[in-house]
């Protein structure tokens, strides 16, 4: 990503309801042309945030800037932004064409011009042109998504917001549309801000991911960094299964360290995070920076991979995921040793130790 000027700036934004604070003075800059995903569990404040950004709710405090114009004081219908709703909000009493033309009609664009643009957008969204006169009720779930997108693009917004529009679709269709959406972002060059509770969805599409928790951002970073170097246990867990080991002054129970690993972790305190898929089986004579001995408790087949739940010496459990060809012979009940390199593990330093999270690999 090259450095660009921010198109959207959020400044100390706070939203308080009667006896509940949904947003705690959050800050965020969004680059022009960026695809930003805001991810969080339900109740984390992401919907409140997007509603404030498009103008359907008012912030209690703070400001929102579009380039150099303050927009949190501008009513929703005067903002150059547009949102694709979770329910899509397609008008059931209008045809596909009339839905797409709606924002143009409001602007007083001539009917012939409107139709021309609507047909162009049907092409862009890869919908047949004869859908123009189809009724919304006659469209399938995926087609409705495309119509909603076409309508939002007809508005030609500076920023396009999405409020979990894919959440109601089945898995395969969702996967297809995720890729289409990413492709559409590339082709239009517009700024997309996408809200979802699925980090997986965010990973596929976005340039950067903002993880939200209880009204603030836990971490804002490119997908790769969120995955490899989560800033907190919350982010690490949100990303999928993960094993945590408490590291106190360079030692952790259940973890056997090689001399070099012991040296680089010496004196450090925090949480050592290890993804199940970073671990590999260690045979006789194999060594690793970090190793663990345990007994297979359960075995789950995941197609090309196998996942194990193993019990370590202290009785705590750990997840291990290996390729099918490296499956543990004997399965449940077998003893095994697994390990990983230090650079595959990530240390989340305790909040009080340092402001900057030191990476175990560094």
């Amino acid at each position, binding site marked *: 990503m090259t450095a660009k000027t921010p198109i959207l700036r959020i400044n100390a934004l706070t939203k308080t309801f009667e006896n509940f604070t949904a947003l705690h003075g959050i800050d965020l800059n969004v680059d022009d042309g960026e695809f930003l995903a805001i991810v969080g569990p339900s109740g984390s404040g992401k919907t409140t945030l997007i509603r404030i950004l*498009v103008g359907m709710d008012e912030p209690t405090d703070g400001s929102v800037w579009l380039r150099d114009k303050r927009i949190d004081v501008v009513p*929703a*219908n*005067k903002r150059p932004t547009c949102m694709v709703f979770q329910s899509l*909000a397609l008008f059931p009493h209008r045809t596909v064409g009339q839905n797409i033309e709606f924002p143009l009609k409001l602007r007083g664009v001539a009917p012939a011009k409107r139709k021309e643009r609507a047909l162009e957008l049907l092409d862009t969204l890869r919908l047949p042109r004869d859908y123009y006169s189809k009724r919304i009720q006659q469209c399938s779930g995926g087609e409705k998504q495309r119509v909603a997108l076409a*309508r939002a693009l007809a*508005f030609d917004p500076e920023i396009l917001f999405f409020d979990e529009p894919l959440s109601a679709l089945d898995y395969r269709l969702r996967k297809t549309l995720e890729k289409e959406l990413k492709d559409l972002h590339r082709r239009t060059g517009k700024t997309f801000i996408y809200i979802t509770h699925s980090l997986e969805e965010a990973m596929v599409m976005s340039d950067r991911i903002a993880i939200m928790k209880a009204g603030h951002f836990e971490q804002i970073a490119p997908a790769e960094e969120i995955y490899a170097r989560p800033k907190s246990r919350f982010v690490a867990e949100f990303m999928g299964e993960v094993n945590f080991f408490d590291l106190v002054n360079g030692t952790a129970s259940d973890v056997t360290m090689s001399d070099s690993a012991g040296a680089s972790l010496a004196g450090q305190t925090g949480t050592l995070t290890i993804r199940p898929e970073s671990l590999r089986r260690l045979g006789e004579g194999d060594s690793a920076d970090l190793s663990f001995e345990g007994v297979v408790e359960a075995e789950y087949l995941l197609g090309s991979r196998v996942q194990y739940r193993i019990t370590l010496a202290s009785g705590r459990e750990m997840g291990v995921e290996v390729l099918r060809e490296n499956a543990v012979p004997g399965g449940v009940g077998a003893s095994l040793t697994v390990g990983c390199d230090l650079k595959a593990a990530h240390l989340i330093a305790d909040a009080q130790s340092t402001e900057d999270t030191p990476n175990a690999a560094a």
Partner: protein
Amino acid sequence: MKTTRFRSGLLVAYGVLILAFLYLPLVSVGLASISKARYLSFPIRRYAYGWYEEAVTSDTVRDLLIISLKVAGLVTILSMVIGFFGALAFARYSWRFRKTYQKLILLPIFFPQTVLGLALLMWFNALDIVPSWKTAIVAHLVWIAPIATLIVSIRAFSFDAALEEAARDMGASQWQTLREVTIPLLMPGVTSAGLFAFLLSWGNFPLSLFTTGADSTLPEWLFAKMVSGYSPLVPTVGMLTVLTSAVLVLGALLLAWAIRRLRPTD
């Protein structure tokens, strides 16, 4: 197999009997209207159609018709408007006294109409308003507008709030949102409310009796003539009243059907 057929036959017979029980009185009114005899008596020995001619040409009947149509027509239009906005307040927007409003609106419907009529008459007197067909409109509205509101509310409850927000988001002003989204989506509810309002006002007797003053609507006249001065003109006008309602209902259904048929091809 045989028993099922027997049972379904029994059910059909039962249905026919119920319908006959409900509709035979209407048929008897119809028969009475074409009887030549001056008094109500069965079986009818001689038939005549002169009373229909009399009804169509009579000035009294024409005046009655005009008053009834004026009252029902205005009640319909006002109920549709009140019902539309009333339903938005009832079902769509959250505001401070919404719960209270939702309960209060049911009150006139639970009142016996005669009591409501009497109360309104006393109220008009207290305000020094001379009762006429105009005060009857107010009386009808007190009872019918809440019903219209409830009918439109059913539609308003199934309305996705995001539709209005989406329109706003795409740049629609409040008036444009109302015109482009809210009104078209609530229209089916408003139309049925209007139809109900007309039928309820057109056939209303107790409220009209108390509040029309010197004016008289068709149901009032039917009752008055039944009490004293019966002639076959009474069942004749009765039949014409029923026919008016029937034509209106069928016309509305036909219109709805035609709109549905025409829409997909736009």
